[in-house]
Each structure stands twice: as C-alpha cells, then as structure tokens.
C-alpha cells in the first residue's frame, strides 16, 4: 500500500515536471513548479523528513513561486519557440540519464536498513545526541551543534546571496540615473 502511494506521488511529480518543461506560458510553468514543490514536500513527509517537508512547502510553493512571478511581472510571461535543433540536447540528456541509471544498479535498495548511509555516523547521532546535547530533535542538534560549522557556512551563503540581489536590484540606495 505504501509503495503504491510512493509510486503515485512520484509519478505525479514526474507529470507536473514534464508539463512545466513543455508549457510555453511561463506563468503556467511557474505555477506548475509550485505544485511540483508541494508534491515533493508531501513525499518528504512520507519519508519522515518533517523538518525538510515544511521548509520545502514554505520555500518552494511559497517564496520561490512569488519571486518567479515577480520576475515575470518585470520581464515577459511568454516563451518564444526556439528553432534550434533539439537532437544534440536530447542526445546528451539520454546519454547522461543512461549512465546515471547504470550507476543506480549498484545502489543499495530503497529503504534498506543496512545501507552504508545508516551504518557510519548516523547511529552515533541517534544514540548519543540525547545525552550529549540534551535536545530531542536530532535534526536540530546535528544542524546547530555537531555540524555547526556547516550551518555557519550556509548562513554566510544566504547572506552573500542577499547582498548579491541587493547589489543587482538595489533597495534603499541611489539608483544610477539614466539607464544606458
């Protein structure tokens, strides 16, 4: 039963992504990307990643959709038909996809409890974090304490991206007069 739900959800994601890629109206494509994000948030919820799930729901379906719509309002909302040959891109995509699928043949089974990812560092976090950190949410204790350096780096990346957008679009500063 749960496999059925998984497959249904993943197929819906595939269909939404395909429709978003094929759609000529950028407005429609952006809305489909929002739906795609919401579906992936559901899938994360099924896989027990509650923290990730509601971040994705707020970011993917909320903020990034709004930002894309903001961009469309400043630019154009219709995509022009390209008259380039699609053969080379399709060839590249199929070859890459084929190689990746060949790569997955060596991957551990889906939800295999003995997969290498579950045997190395994670047991330490699950068994010891209660005593060492004293915080029930393991994700929080790994995020903020065990891997505090990582998170500091991520916050710096967000800071830098924010500064970059401000430099490009400007807020509360003099705009250069006379666009060239």
């Amino acid at each position, binding site marked *: 039963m749960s496999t059925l739900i998984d497959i249904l959800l993943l197929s819906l994601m595939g269909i939404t992504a395909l429709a978003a890629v094929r759609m000529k109206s950028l407005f429609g494509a952006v809305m489909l990307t929002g739906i795609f994000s919401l579906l992936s948030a559901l899938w994360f919820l099924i896989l027990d990643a509650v923290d990730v799930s509601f971040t994705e729901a*707020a970011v993917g379906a909320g*903020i990034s959709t709004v930002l894309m719509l903001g961009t469309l309002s400043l630019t154009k909302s219709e995509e022009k038909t390209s008259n380039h040959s699609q053969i080379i891109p399709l060839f590249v995509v199929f070859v890459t996809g084929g190689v990746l699928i060949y790569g997955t043949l060596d991957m551990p089974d889906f939800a295999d409890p003995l997969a290498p990812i579950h045997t190395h560092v994670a047991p330490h976090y699950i068994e010891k974090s209660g005593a060492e950190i004293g915080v029930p949410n393991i994700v*929080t204790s790994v995020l*903020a304490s065990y891997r505090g350096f990582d998170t*500091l780096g991520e*916050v710096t990346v967000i*800071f830098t991206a924010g500064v970059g957008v401000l430099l490009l679009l400007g807020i509360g500063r003099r705009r250069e007069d006379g666009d060239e």
Partner: protein
Amino acid sequence: MTHHFILRVITKLLIPLILLFALYVQFHGDFGPGGGFQAGVIIAAALVLYALVFGLNTASAVIKEWVLLVLIPLGVLIYAGVGVASLLLGGNYLDYNVLAHDPVHGQHLGILLVELGVGMTVAAVLTTIFFAFAGRGHRDANGNLLPHSALSDEIRNRKDGQP
C-alpha cells in the same frame, strides 16, 4: 479598499497566526520539528503575503527597509559571535559546552542563540529579496518608494524621455 475585500480580511486574520506559528517553530525547534531556517522562511512568507495584499508601501511602513538591512548581518554576527564567545570561555570555536555551568545547559543556550541568528538572517534576506524584486522600477532617484500616482507619472516620463 474595495478591491479584494475577502482577501484583505482573511489576510488580516491569518498574519498574526502565521507569525505566532513562526515564533513557535523558532523557539520550540529543539523539541519538535523546526528551527531557524524554517521559522525564518515562515516569517518571510507572512511579510510577503502582507506586501502582496496591501501593497509594498504599506508593508515597508510595517517593517522599515533599514531594519531588514541591519538584521541581515546581525544574524550572521550572532552566529559567529557565539563561536567567538565559546573561544573566549576556553573552548573550541562553536563548542557550546563551555557556555554555561554544565555541558547540556551550554548546548541548549548555544543552539538557541545560533538558531536565533539563522532565523534572523533567513527572514531578513528573503523579505529583502522580495522587496527588491517588487520595488524594482518603483523608486525615485533616492531609492524611496514612489506613491502610486507618482509611479504612473514616472512611467509616462520615462516612456516619453527615452528614444
């Protein structure tokens, strides 16, 4: 005020709840799902919703742009400052054990402060980005937002003035 009447009323009802939920997610993140990243995103979503429904001018009266511009680096500084504080107290960088009288309390305090910093930066960056997108082309030469009447004038002038 007659446009989108239902939208305005519902938004007014929802925004305090969204902000309350964001604070819950921020400070209860140690015990349930949540933390700085999620809380920051939710606060930003609430402000974006407000700006979408009531307009950018109203929203930037609620939260001034300079406040956002202060909050962005402040969050990073709080995070890095916790690391420096633990250095000064004799531990390693970002080692929260030394922050309080016993390690578990120190960890609690450290995580709380670090998540606060994360939440601040994330909320401020995302809100600022939205303001930057929404305000693009709607500002005068000093970077102040134009009222709507002046906006249409400026658009007309720019269209006339350009070849």
